């Protein structure tokens, strides 16, 4: 087993545990940067899709995984970011300005919505945000002067530091753009988690009463969390719009909201890794299914039969399996596997068993 001897507080404050871990992450980053040379266009596109979903997942993870507020309406903020980006660009703003602004605007919109919404708890908040997601669909149709309504909009090519970037024309450059955003968001997230605000998020998630007693302004903390979450989701939405090329009111439906929430649950709530793991599952599941279908079809015949709802059926089953067997998600499972190897042969089965929690203080209001 690897034991890190700590002689300095910075060893706990900096984001990596030791040189070995830092090297691994840098290698991963290098592999990610080299992907356009390693993968063909199809898989590069899929990888781009996974990264965009991961950014959206990071956005929802702040709110649900770390602040403990479930949202079933994040597709609304994907849509807001996407439309804000395109509308700003169409009004003549360069992409490098429109894109950050789109996220910031979405964040502010989210924070304003959060002020009434976060008086609700648990299932009621989920219902409120679900309604929001349905509402945004209608708003897009109704304000068709800006949004193009049902006809939708087409994403123009974007210009980054003088380079024309387009999903189909320059898939490599588009991938790097998405990767850049993902890396920046992840680094910001890591920083936040080791700072007082990130701890305040966790405090609000685990016990609002004692967070308040420790001097955390619960309402403000939740609002900031909602705003941050929406801003990141807005950026993911803007990238999603560019990736899809064309979009209308149905692109960001309630189904996307639910998929996003399922994704971070499968990945592992409350961890940055979880957003990425979940995105990999979401992104590659359709491909995996079609490959599996072809294989099954080749053996048993009938590969051309389309099964409606197969993807969602499988997805739902995976989710149920995770909630029953591994509530900590893929990241939780990964931690167990890693511990098994680190401690071999001394791993005990009950190592990750949690003691039953004790009585909670009665609700105060």
């Amino acid at each position: 087993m690897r034991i890190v001897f700590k002689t300095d507080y910075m060893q706990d404050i900096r984001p990596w545990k030791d040189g070995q871990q830092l090297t691994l992450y840098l290698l991963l980053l290098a592999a990610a940067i080299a992907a356009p040379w390693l993968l063909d266009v199809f898989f590069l596109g899929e990888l781009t899709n996974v990264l965009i979903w991961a950014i959206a997942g990071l956005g929802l993870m702040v709110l649900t995984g770390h602040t403990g507020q479930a949202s079933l309406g994040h597709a609304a903020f994907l849509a807001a970011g996407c439309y804000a980006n395109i509308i700003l660009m169409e009004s003549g703003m360069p992409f490098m300005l429109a894109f950050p602004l789109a996220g910031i605007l979405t964040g502010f919109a989210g924070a304003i919505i959060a002020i009434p919404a976060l008086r609700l708890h648990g299932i009621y908040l989920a219902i409120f945000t679900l309604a929001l997601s349905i509402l945004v669909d209608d708003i897009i149709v109704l304000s068709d002067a800006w949004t193009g309504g049902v006809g939708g909009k087409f994403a123009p090519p974007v210009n980054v530091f003088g380079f024309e970037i387009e999903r189909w024309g320059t898939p490599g450059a588009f991938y790097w753009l998405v990767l850049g955003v993902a890396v920046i968001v992840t680094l910001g997230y890591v920083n936040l988690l080791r700072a007082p605000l990130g701890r305040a998020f966790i405090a609000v998630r685990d016990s609002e009463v004692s967070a308040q007693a420790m001097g955390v302004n619960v309402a403000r903390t939740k609002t900031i969390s909602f705003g941050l979450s929406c801003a990141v989701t807005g950026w993911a939405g803007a990238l999603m719009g560019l990736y899809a090329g064309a979009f209308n009111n149905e692109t960001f439906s309630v189904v996307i909201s639910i998929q996003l929430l399922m994704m971070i649950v499968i990945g592992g709530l409350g961890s940055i890794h979880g957003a990425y793991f979940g995105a990999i599952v979401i992104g590659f599941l359709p491909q995996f299914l079609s490959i599996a279908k072809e294989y099954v079809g080749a053996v048993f015949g009938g590969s051309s039969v389309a099964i409606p709802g197969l993807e969602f059926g499988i997805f739902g089953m995976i989710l149920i399996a995770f909630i029953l067997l591994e509530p900590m998600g893929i990241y939780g499972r990964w931690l167990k596997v890693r511990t098994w190897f680190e401690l071999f042969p001394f791993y005990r089965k009950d190592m990750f068993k949690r003691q039953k929690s004790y009585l909670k203080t009665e609700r105060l209001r």
Partner: protein
Amino acid sequence: MSLLELETVTLKFGGLTAVDRLSFCVEEGEVFAIVGPNGAGKSTVFNLISRFYDPHEGAIRFDGHDLLRARPDAVASWGVARTFQNIELFDHATVLQNLLVGRHRHRRSNLLSEIFFTPSVRKAEIQNRHFVEEIIDFLDLQAYRDKMIAGLPYGVRKVVEVGRALATDPKLLLLDEPASGLSVEETTDMRWWIDDIRRQMGITVLMVEHDMGLVSGVSDRVLAMADGAKLALGTPAEVQSDPAVIEAYLGRAA
């Protein structure tokens, strides 16, 4: 001037008067205990001081200022920290993170500087860590520093909660039943810690406790309550021999 003054404080839940015209003062540097049978309103008094409830009548003053003007989350920055009867820790965080949340009231950074983790944030983090390490040392929590709360035994959680309250660097520490559920040895440890908190750190302690051994061993003055009202106030020995207190606990002799 007393550190904490309650003046004819009354709180009603519907028809039930939980706290009935209660007045008492806590002097700086003392250990003040509140005792009383179940439902006497002891924890409610704590929740009033933490501003979770608004009293219907009366005044609460801390350090000469009207505490009732403070929002619930501002009470900590006034220098009042508390623990809870049924342990309210952040279960899915480590002991270290829990203690660092206690430093939240000293946060000087904002959202942007934290996202970029500027050198000033880093410096503040090192200071926070230094402060928290002293508490870890004081409460002998070294072995649990990086452990998740969810896996810790009850007795350790109880101590971590005291540590988290100390991490706010308070003037007044409210301990809600610090010894409930603890073994005899752990209760003895708690007794010395409360003594040291007062003597070494100079923090005034107000506690609710049922364990009369702990109360008489460590507290300077005791307030006995029943049905939300004051029964007796004095030294532990005085209160324990007070006929009204004996009657509240044991009933009237036939």
